[in-house]
Every structure is written in C-alpha cells, then in structure tokens.
C-alpha cells in the first residue's frame, strides 16, 4: 500500500476546464432560444399578472387642488378631497379603480357648464400623479389654467400602490369569495362521480371478456373531441326551460350545480378513464394467481389486490379531474346560470366589469387549488412509475358469463350517456326551431347571419389548430430533445423542465389574462402580436405544452442514451443524428403530439377567450357567443362542426400512423 501512495503527497493535479464543442455551443443556443420562448410565453406574463393582483389604483383626491375664477378673481385653492367631503359626491369605494381608471374633473363641480366663461385652475401635487387633458398627459406639479370648454376634457388618473388591498376587497365581497366554495364543491363532487364511473368502466374493460370493448373505448373518448361547453348545450335541450325531458328534474333548474356537474362528468370522463385503465392494465397477473391459490374470495381479492394496485391511478385521476373541473370556464358559462364559479368570475371581472386587477386576484385564488392538485398528482405519478416492474405479467381475464353481462350493460349505459349527449346536439343543430318547428333544415349552419364570427371563425379555428400542431410539435419536441440529450447546463435544463411542467397547473383563463397584461402593455415591443393569430398560437401551444412535452420526453427516454456519444465519436454533428435517427424513431410520438395539439386547439375556449379579435374569432368561442346571444341551435351546429373536424383529424392521424408503422415495421419489431 504505502509504496503506491507517492502521488497522494503531491499537490492536487490542476482542474480541467472542458472545452465546449461546436455541438455543445449550438445546443446551448437552442436551449436558450426555447427556454426564452417559455419565459416570454409563460413566466413573464404570469409574473406580470401576479404583480397586477397586488396593484391597487385609487383616485387620491388629496393630490389635486382646484381654483375657480367666475370673473371676480381666483378663489382660494381647495383640494378635491375637501370638495368631495363637503358636497358628498363620491363614496370611498367609488374611488377604487383599475389602473386604467379615469375620473372627470368636472365631477367636483356639479354646476359645471362648458359654455360658461368660468376659468379653472388645477394642479396635482404627487410626483408620480398625473391628469389628462384629452390625450395629453400632465405630470408636473405646476398650476394650469383652463377655460370651461377645455376643463371638461380633463380627467384625473389614479395613483397606483402595491399591497394586498385587492385581496382584502375580494375577501370582503361575499359575492366573490363564495365562488371558492362553489368551485370546490362542484370539483369535488364531479371528481367522486367521474372517478367512480371511470373505475367501473376501466374495470369492465380490463377484467371482463364482454363484447364490444373496442366500441366502448371509442365511445368513451368522444368527449375529448368537443369543447367542454357542448354537453351544456345538450343538457339545455334535455332539461332546459323547454327541455325534452325536463320533468325528470322535478322542477329543479338545470342551470346551476346540477348542469355543471353532469356536463363536467361528461367532459372529464375520458381523462379519468385513460389513467385508470393504464393503472389497471399494468397490474401484475401473478398477484391474482397468488390470490386464487390462497383461495381468497373475489371480494377480498378486489380489495387486497385490485384496489391497492390501482390506487396511484385512482389518486392521479382524481387530481386530474379536479383540476379540469375547477379550471373549466366554458361549461359553467353556458349552464351555470347564477351559480358563480372562479373561472367564470375571472371572465366577468375582466370582460364584464373591466376590472383587470380583480380578475388577477381571482386568477391567483384559482391558481392555489390548481397548483396543489397538480403538485400532488406529479408526486403520485412518480410513485406509480416506480411500481411498474419490467417483470410483471399482464393479467388475462377469464370468461364469466354473468360478470361479463353486468359489465356490458354498465358500459352500454355510460356509452349511451356520452354518445346520447352528442346525438342530441346534432339533432338540435338540424331542427328548425325547437320546440315549435321540428322540421329538419340546415338553416342553423348559416353561421354568417349570426353573432359569433360566422364561418370565418370556423376557418380560423382550423388555421389555429394546424399552426398550433405544426409549431407546437416542432418547439416541444426539439425542446424535449435538448433537455433530455444534452450534458451539462444543469441549471438551465432544470429551469426548463420546471417551466415545461408549469402550463399543466395554469388554468387557461389565468394564462389568457396574463397574456393581456403582458402583451397588451404599451411598453412591450411584442405587443404587435396582440390581436393577431400569432398570439393565439403562442397561447395555445403554451397552454398544452406539458402533456406534449411529457409525451416527447417519454419517447426520447426510450432511445439508447449513447447515440449522441457514438455520433460525436464519429465526428457527426448532433443535428444529423437528430434528423436521421431521433426523429424517425420517435415519429409515432411526434404524430401523437401533433394530433393532441390539433384537437385541443379546436376545442379550447378558456385561454383564447381574452385574446381573440374580430379578425381571429374562433369556432369554439363562436359556440359560446352564439349560445350567449340565445342562438342555441347554431351554437350546437358549430359545436358539431368542431366534433366532425376532430374526428376527421383523428382518422387522418390513425391512417398516417398505421401506414408509418407498416413501412417501418422491419426495424420497429423489438428483438432482444
């Protein structure tokens, strides 16, 4: 030993600072660009929104002083505050405004007449305060003199301060904070129902040998292809004031919690089903064999093998459903009636009351349950992955006539519910005037005569969906490749990972509102994209980033980790490897990402509701607007157009994937 220790006594060898290769630098650049995209499209807008929620704008009347000259010399200076007090003009809460608030100076002179010869003098005392004369901004603290005719064009601007005043206002307004309770109630109730129903359905699919499994699977996936507000329209036709079977509700209105819950169960069902089916499908057959050999009763086996095996799936599905419901906007908007929910509150604050700050506050409130659900779900999913062992044997159900029949009828019932709602929408769309004229016609498809954007909104939607699918797939896949396959840049990569996971936790309404704050700011040079198709694409790609990213990462993880090492040892640039190997091998996943983005871009309402302009109206929004305007049948018709478009898109996707798999079958079949 001792004899080899010589070098231990030497000073340590100098540290090596690795030289970066051309590939390293290019990849660093690429990570930077895509990271920058996420910062601009996600982090900065959210930050702006957050700071907005803490910004209060108040007309500080102490800051303004007035003098009047009615021809007999200037009066003593008097502050706006003193005038307001003595004449009791505005109440304190009327002085709270948004950052865009304006208050006419003439408010303080009830006898003001712009034809009079009276002159007015005005100054403001705050360094940061200002008032406007028409569009001209006066920010100094000098006296300014105006004739009456000009004085009427003067508006006071609020002074901004930061603090939690908005939150105080929020929590002292029962009409607002009651929504928290409502949202939680609806989300939890829906979660229980959906997860229960989906578990039964998944159980039947994986544990029975009932017929028509493929058909049931297909039917269960239908809700993914339509906007979440479409079931609302079907429910109105069924149970609304003139509904086909409204008696079933015994006089209870469908508008409100009942409608929201039924509709939410409809649109969240496939999401829960996918997760739970996966969880049940991976359970290990060996455990069942063990249970049989121990002569455990089916009931006991169910509780000791099935449920524990699927528990992570159940928990994960619960959080996903909870999140979908609490962040959904379209459905409660259509069928919520007077029942307030958080996501709709954001809309009402921003569009209805133009109170952007309060919209931001509600957004932050909505973020809390959404973020928590997301965090717990991520945690649980990590556990589930660890649970799958490569050696487990898939379970093969045995035939059991009675059990199979029960399963079949149960699934049939659920499928009828889902497909039924869609058929009702289609029926509604084709009827001339429910319930008076039941003749069939295509009149409801004459969108151009309705409010909502007409056929062009449909074409806009297709354009948006195609652009989103194209650019989104490119950005997402390339970004995922960069984080997965580069070495070094540890900080950048983890920051990127974090940003890529975030969109899933951000409700669409919140993202859309954040975009208003960020991109519509006069000082933002990127503001030029506001009101164009570009911002809709950016917003939609960002909104659906996470699932796409995870799909890409999963595909990339299945590639041999050493491909990059081999390529660099052969002195081939990474982009050659990327183009010749990575992309072809991952093509099925790439196609999956693009169809996912396409379908979601067709159906999304929440994120884009704040961002469309008359030129870029979308089909999904047209559905909502037509419904709002009372044109329910055309709304249903447009909703069905979205459905058929998505069906066609999926068929194309299926066809292309099949074809691809066939032509690459030679090397895709795994051998070892």
């Amino acid at each position: 030993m001792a004899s080899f220790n010589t070098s231990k006594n030497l000073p340590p060898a100098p540290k090596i600072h690795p030289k970066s290769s051309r590939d390293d630098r290019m990849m660093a650049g690429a990570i930077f660009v895509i990271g920058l995209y996420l910062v601009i499209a996600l982090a900065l807008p959210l930050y702006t929104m957050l700071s907005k929620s803490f910004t209060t704008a108040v007309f500080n009347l102490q800051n303004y002083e007035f003098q009047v000259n009615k021809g007999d010399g200037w009066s003593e200076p008097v502050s706006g505050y003193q005038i307001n007090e003595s004449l009791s003009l505005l109440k304190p809460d009327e002085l709270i405004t948004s950052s865009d608030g304006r208050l006419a100076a003439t408010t303080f002179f009830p006898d003001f007449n712009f034809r009079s010869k009276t002159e007015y003098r005005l100054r403001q005392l705050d360094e940061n305060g200002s008032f406007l004369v028409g569009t001209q901004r006066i920010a100094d603290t000098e006296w300014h003199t105006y004739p009456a005719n000009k004085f009427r064009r003067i508006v006071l601007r609020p002074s901004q301060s930061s603090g939690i005043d908005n939150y105080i206002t929020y929590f002292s307004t029962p009409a607002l904070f009651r929504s928290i309770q409502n949202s939680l109630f609806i989300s939890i109730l829906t979660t229980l129902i959906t997860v229960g129903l989906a578990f039964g359905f998944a159980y039947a699919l994986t544990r029975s040998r009932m017929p028509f499994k493929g058909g049931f699977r297909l039917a269960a996936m239908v809700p993914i292809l339509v906007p979440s507000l479409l079931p609302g329209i079907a429910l109105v036709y069924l149970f609304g004031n003139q509904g086909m079977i409204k008696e079933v509700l015994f006089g209870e209105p469908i508008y409100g919690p009942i409608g929201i819950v039924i509709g939410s169960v409809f649109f969240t069902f496939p999401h829960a089903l996918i997760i739970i089916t996966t969880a049940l499908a991976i359970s290990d057959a060996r455990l069942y064999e063990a249970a049989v050999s121990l002569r455990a009763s089916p009931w006991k086996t169910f509780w000791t093998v099935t449920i524990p095996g699927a528990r992570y799936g159940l928990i994960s599905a619960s959080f996903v459903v909870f999140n979908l419901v609490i962040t959904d906007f379209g459905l409660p908007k259509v069928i919520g009636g007077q029942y307030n929910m958080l996501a709709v509150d954001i809309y009402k604050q921003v569009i209805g009351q133009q109170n952007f700050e309060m919209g931001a506050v509600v957004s932050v409130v909505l973020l809390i349950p959404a973020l928590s659900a997301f965090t717990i779900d991520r945690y649980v999913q990590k556990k589930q992955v660890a649970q799958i062992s490569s050696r487990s044997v898939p379970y093969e159900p045995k035939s059991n006539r009675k059990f199979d029949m029960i399963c079949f009828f149960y699934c049939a019932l659920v499928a009828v519910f889902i497909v039924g709602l869609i058929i009702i929408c289609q029926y509604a769309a084709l009827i001339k005037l429910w319930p008076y004229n039941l003749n069939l016609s295509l009149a409801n498809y004459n969108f151009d005569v309705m409010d909502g954007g007409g056929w062009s909104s449909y074409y806009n939607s297709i354009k948006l969906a195609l652009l989103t699918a194209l650019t989104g797939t490119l950005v997402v896949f390339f970004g995922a490749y960069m984080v997965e396959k580069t070495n070094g840049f540890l900080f950048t990569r983890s920051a990127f990972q974090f940003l890529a996971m975030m969109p899933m936790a951000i409700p669409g309404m919140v993202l859309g509102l954040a975009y208003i704050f960020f991109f519509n700011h006069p000082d933002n040079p990127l503001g030029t994209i506001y009101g164009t198709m570009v911002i809709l694409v950016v917003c939609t790609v960002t909104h659906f980033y996470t699932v796409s990213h995870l799909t890409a990462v999963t595909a990339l993880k299945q590639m041999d980790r050493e491909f990059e090492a081999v390529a660099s040892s052969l002195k081939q640039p990474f982009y050659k490897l990327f183009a010749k190997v990575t992309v072809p091998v991952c093509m099925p996943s790439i196609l999956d990402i693009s169809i996912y983005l396409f379908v979601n871009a067709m159906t999304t309402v929440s994120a884009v509701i704040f961002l469309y302009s008359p030129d870029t109206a979308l089909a999904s929004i047209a559905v909502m607007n037509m419904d709002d305007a009372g044109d329910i049948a055309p709304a249903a018709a447009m909703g069905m157009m979205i459905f058929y478009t998505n069906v066609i898109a999926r068929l194309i996707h299926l066809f292309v994937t099949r074809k691809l798999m066939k032509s690459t079958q030679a090397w895709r079949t795994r051998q070892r």
Partner: protein
Amino acid sequence: MSALSKDETTSETTKNTPFLRISRLTKKFGDFVALNDVSLDVNEGEFVCFLGPSGCGKTTFLRAIAGLDIQTSGTVEQANVDISALPPSERDFGIVFQSYALFPNLTVEKNVSFGLENQKIPRSDIKKRVDELLELVGLPEQETKFPSQLSGGQQQRIALARAIATSPGLLLLDEPLSALDAKVRAYLRHEIKTLQRRLGVTTIMVTHDQEEALTMADRIVVMNQGAIDQIGTPTEIYREPKTLFVADFIGAMNQVKGRVVSSSSVSLGSLELKCRDHELPVGQEAVIAIRPEDIVPHKKIENSSPQSGNSFNVKVEEMEFLGSFWRVQLSDELLEGAHLIVDLSINIVLQMNIDAGNQISIDLPPDRLWVFNPASEE
C-alpha cells in the same frame, strides 16, 4: 490504493513515449470520488483491459478518456497531444457500448457508414469501405438488414465495424460482450482479439469478467473503488498479485488468517511457514494466501514430527469432482479450524489413492505463499 509510482510504469513501457498517457486523473460526482488520482500509460497497439467489480469506476475511467464525461482534474495525452479538455468530437477514438447503440432505423450499411459521411469521401469509396469492414467482422452481405434482424453477437460486430470505420487511433470497448451468452462470448473474444492484432489499433476494454481480461489483454489494469490496484500482464496479475484484493478478485485463492513471525515467515495455527518476503510488522495479524493449484501433495510424512519446513500432514475432508480435476478440501488440528482447498489432477488422485478421510501431506512452496495485510481490504 493509488497510481503506480514512476519506476514501475517505466519498467513495463518501451523506450519510446507511450501512445496514451494518463496522469493523475480524478473524477468527482459532487462529493463522491469515482476516480481517485489514477495514472496509466498505454503503448501503441496495446490491448489493455480495465478489470474490477461493479461500481469501481471502470466506465467512468473509459468515459473520461473518451471525453464523454471529462475528468475533474488530471491530464490525458494521446499521440503526444494534450487532449484533456477536448470534447469527444475533437478526439480520435471509436467506441462500442454494452448496448451497442446501433441506430435501429438505419440498415447495417448505413450504421457502419454513419461516420464516413460528410467527410468528402466519394460514395463508391464509402461502399467499398463498408464491404471491407463487414468482411473484416465476418458479416459480409448483411448490408440491407436492420439491427433488430440480427442476433446479439452480430449486432455487436456491426457496432465494432462502425467504431473502426473511420480508422481511429484508439478503440474503446465498454463491456462489449456482457450482453451475450457464454458460447458467443467465447467466440467473439477470440474474434475481437484477432481483429485488434490485425489492425494494430490501441484498444482499451472494460470488463468485470476476469476470464475475458486474462484471455484478451496484453495488460490488465485491476481497479478497486476508484483506484488502480495493479497493472500488469495477465500472468503477472495472476501469479504476482500485489494486494489481497487483486489476489482475491482474480482466480481462486486460499485465504487463511495467520500472524507475521518475520519478514519471510508467518504462523498458521500451530505451524510456522516460510513465505514470500513482505513488509508487514512482526506480530501483526495477516492473511495468508495460496492458489489451490500451487499446493503440492505428497505421501503422508511417516515420522514423529508432522511438519518439516512448509510440508505438513492434513486430513482430506471433502472431494468434489469438477470434470478435469478434483477440488479437495483439507483441514487438520494443526490448522486450527482453517481449511485449505487444493486442485488435484485425476491422475494424482488415483496414483496417491486420495480419498475423503485419508491423511496426506502437502507442501506450500514459500514463493507461492503470500502474506497480505487484512486491513488493505475495504
């Protein structure tokens, strides 16, 4: 255990400077030291094996040489150029991984020619070179197949062809045979060795299989917990292990507890045996080691003293027939509970009429008897 001192390395090196000169390499992952100050010289055309148990840092060492995970400190020089900080793309090596990392969507031909493209080589020359390479690895006329259509051994050879396609100065192999079954492995061992000789390419192979290392390597680097324990030819490593770890890791070795008596003798039970010279202090507990095949059997010593020099009587406890030889377990009161294993040819067993329960005498040749410090383990 750390790097070898200068004089030892030079004694094994030829006069001209080595092709690859690695000095004082350290690699840390956070606080964990995966490679601790290792040095190694490799001559041109040499076949060197890194041998050691799982997790000892073999792959880490190889990847540092390749520049795939550059060392924290220390230098690597190849062909007299300091390449310590260079990225892999600016170094001159070919590499084969345990997984082969063949591109699944490219044909054999495209896999092999991957490194030949973009090098301003005419298409026809590339084709010729690919044919030549496939011939070389014994897989002609497989160009149009995909990797998944080949057996594991064939895939391995394609990976090799791809790695040597650009005629690199250095070939790095990380456990290239461990994913194959025993028969294919034995065959490919020979194939790779022949190929390497023919090309004369300097080669470093990582393995945890001692047989692989002993049969293929010109020199073996035995690694243990991020350090080099010994560097030497297969016979040196086998016959002259420098540490208990090396002695234990390679081949079979009897190990019994004893105590140092002098710099050339040691006590075992109630016996005192002559052994190789060592530097352990007198009176210290030590591990006495001898290979089973080095123990020489004799007829029982039939005089009053049961011991003369390093020969003494023992009882045959158990015999295990292993086909070409017998593995015999010995013990005796003299050994005080220790057992010795000896491998005996079938002839000897017949001639000497050795059977369980018999007494025989054995001789432990002093120059085959090592004394190691037990503390040097762990």
